[in-house]
């Protein structure tokens, strides 16, 4: 009797004539009752046959396979979302590294260009006033260029930058007491990395900053005696340290 009522409900639901609340309950029952599912399917077949519609009987479990395919698609889409997040993070990290690398390169070139005609001219170099890097008066002669930094020409904290035949500087040396534009630029670079720290991991930031430091150190070590011909005696090559601004920035980034 109860089964009759359920089947009567099924027929009414098939026609869309069952109240929504009953539909919900019956749907749950259909989901676990193969007999009701088969009956529902045959009701469709009866209607199609009455209307002379073309039909073909599907293999066993067709609807179950569709349901499984939908379930599988849902499952597959979840790890995809996870991979997308990882990909975004990797792209962001790559972007940060690329920007940092480009900045290092630009800073180096800017420093070399700025120093090209300054200190090598021994006393003709103009210092940096108010934190702004001023262009040198004239290019160095004999293929030699120097980076001039310091508040005044008198305190010419000079580092010699020799260029080889390929135009690349042999070393990059900056004075330890730099309160100048070169420091400011490097600080800007450090600030840039810190400002974009949301896109990188602490380890990655540290790597970038370490690379910045080690590049300068390597350059120093490569030419320990490299000093400008006109450099004062109280600024030996070993006294120059390019990393003055970096530790503070590095610690700030952590």
């Amino acid at each position, binding site marked *: 009797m109860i089964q009759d009522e359920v089947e009567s409900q099924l027929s009414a639901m098939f026609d869309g*004539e069952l109240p929504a609340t009953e539909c919900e309950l019956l749907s749950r029952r259909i989901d676990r009752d*193969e007999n009701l*599912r088969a009956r529902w399917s045959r009701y469709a077949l009866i209607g199609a046959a009455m209307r002379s519609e073309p*039909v073909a009987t599907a293999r066993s479990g067709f609807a179950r396979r569709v349901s499984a395919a939908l379930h599988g698609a849902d499952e597959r889409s979840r790890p995809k979302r996870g991979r997308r997040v990882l990909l975004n993070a990797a792209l962001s990290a790559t972007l940060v590294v690329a920007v940092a690398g480009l900045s290092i390169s630009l800073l180096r070139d800017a420093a070399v260009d700025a120093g090209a005609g300054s200190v090598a001219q021994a006393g003709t170099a103009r210092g940096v006033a108010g934190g702004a890097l001023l262009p040198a008066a004239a290019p160095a002669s004999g293929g030699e260029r120097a980076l001039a930094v310091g508040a005044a020409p008198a305190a010419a904290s000079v580092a010699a930058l020799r260029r080889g035949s390929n135009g690349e500087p042999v070393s990059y040396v900056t004075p330890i007491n730099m309160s100048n534009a070169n420091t400011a630029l490097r600080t800007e670079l450090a600030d840039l990395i810190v400002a974009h720290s949301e896109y990188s991991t602490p380890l990655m930031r540290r790597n970038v900053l370490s690379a910045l430091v080690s590049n300068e150190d390597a350059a120093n070590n490569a030419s320990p005696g490299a000093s400008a011909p006109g450099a004062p005696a109280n600024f030996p090559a070993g006294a120059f340290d390019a990393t003055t601004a970096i530790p503070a920035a590095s610690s700030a980034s952590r």
Partner: protein
Amino acid sequence: MGPDASDLSLVRRVQRGERGAYDLLVLKYQHKVVKLVMRYLRNPADAEDVAQEAFVKAYRALPQFRGDSAFYTWLYRIAINTAKNALAARDRNPVSYELDLQTNDDSSDMVSRLKDPETPEGLALTEEIRDTVNHAIEELPEDLRTAIVLRELEGMSYEEIAASMDCPVGTVRSRIFRAREAIDRRLREVFDGGLGRTEELV
């Protein structure tokens, strides 16, 4: 509520997150969609795979379905496009089709022929279903036959049928149910006795 409205009711339930309602739509239209796809892909196994793909695509697109057309009209277009794409893909890769032919043994080939409505066996099955249904309807009492015909052929709602037959809506519901039960009983005999494939409709 007409047939389109009953489908729309199921669609709305799916759009509210009730996947079981989509299962009912699949059960309802699987025969028509498989048959439709078979116009393009004659191999029944391929046709079922493509029909399955069409149902999956339809499910994914269902949030965008607004009900401007009937659900089956919308599903029909998806199934046709999926079948055409599958056909084009198969033409680009004929090797897989040849492999399918080679892996068919005699038993599976016979089943395929039975399920393919274009083969003599398939046509016989389709005709047998149609004849069984029509004979069952002819044997129904007048009130049951009128109710089921008004519903299935005229697409009238229970309320409209009740008005037409001058009886309560509950009586219409009961008559239609009893008519379906009588026809279904004959149909099960065909499947159980002749082919033993009643469960294959699920």
